[in-house]
């Protein structure tokens, strides 16, 4: 996405709720290429609230991915594998 001239952007979105839904669909990978293009080219670069919301949604997801993942303890992995091999041996 390009970096639009923020001083030229609209400060109020006339359809914030619909935009928020579209924006989340785009970030979730559920929007069609047409919907994406329409939104990016014809709305986002002109609309400050949606532009900000888009970047916020992306930033939250990045933060979730880096801060909320965890690794299974090795003892758990070993225990599951051992139980399954025991099962197979029967």
């Amino acid at each position, binding site marked *: 996405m390009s970096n639009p001239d923020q001083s030229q952007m609209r400060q109020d979105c006339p359809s*914030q*709720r619909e935009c*928020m*839904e579209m924006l*989340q669909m785009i970030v*979730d*990978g*559920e929007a069609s290429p047409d919907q994406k293009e329409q939104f990016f080219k014809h709305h986002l670069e002109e609309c400050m*609230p949606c532009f*900000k*919301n888009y*970047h*916020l*949604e992306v*930033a*939250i*997801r990045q*933060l*979730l*991915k880096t*801060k*909320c*993942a*965890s*690794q*299974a*303890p090795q003892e*758990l*992995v070993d*225990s*599951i*594998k051992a*139980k*399954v091999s025991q*099962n*197979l041996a029967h």
Partner: protein
Amino acid sequence: MELEEAPKHHYSDNEKQKIFNNEFMPHINSMYNFAYRLTLDQDDSKDLVQDTYLKAYRFIDSFQQGTNAKAWLFRILKNSFINDYRKKSKEPSKVDYQEVESYYNSDEVDRQITPDLRVESLQDMIGDEISNALNSLDVDFRTVIILCDLEGFKYDEMAKILDIPIGTVRSRLHRARNLLKEKLSKYAKQMGYKNA
């Protein structure tokens, strides 16, 4: 991806071992994280993951090789959680979805969008803020955020994992994200006071 369905296959022991190691075990970290975020307890989450994997092994003949093993496993884990763990957890009973749906369809939802949360304040959250914010959400809201934002499941996959319509997946996600943002703006405000 139903466990209850009659077995579709009769895998040999060798095939079972292969499916288990190549298709099920690679998801162990995601499964553990999901279990931990559901139970919020390390011992419970280990038990839940182990139960789930043993169940998956027991019902491996209902699994179609090459299909979405991760979604299949997540669904078993979610069901085990509801049947075996949720009962014993102290968490008060759940949201009234009727209420959630009508909330979603009201205008209140738009007012609720928090305009004061900024990308810059998120970048200052280098500690446990986001994790605590996520954990503080009701378990059903937590779940959709984990499935979608952390694990990258599609809406239709989430609908199958959770046994709810796609429309409900979307509305629950929308609400969950608004709640998460509310929590994050509270943290951001607190940090603002500290840094001021």
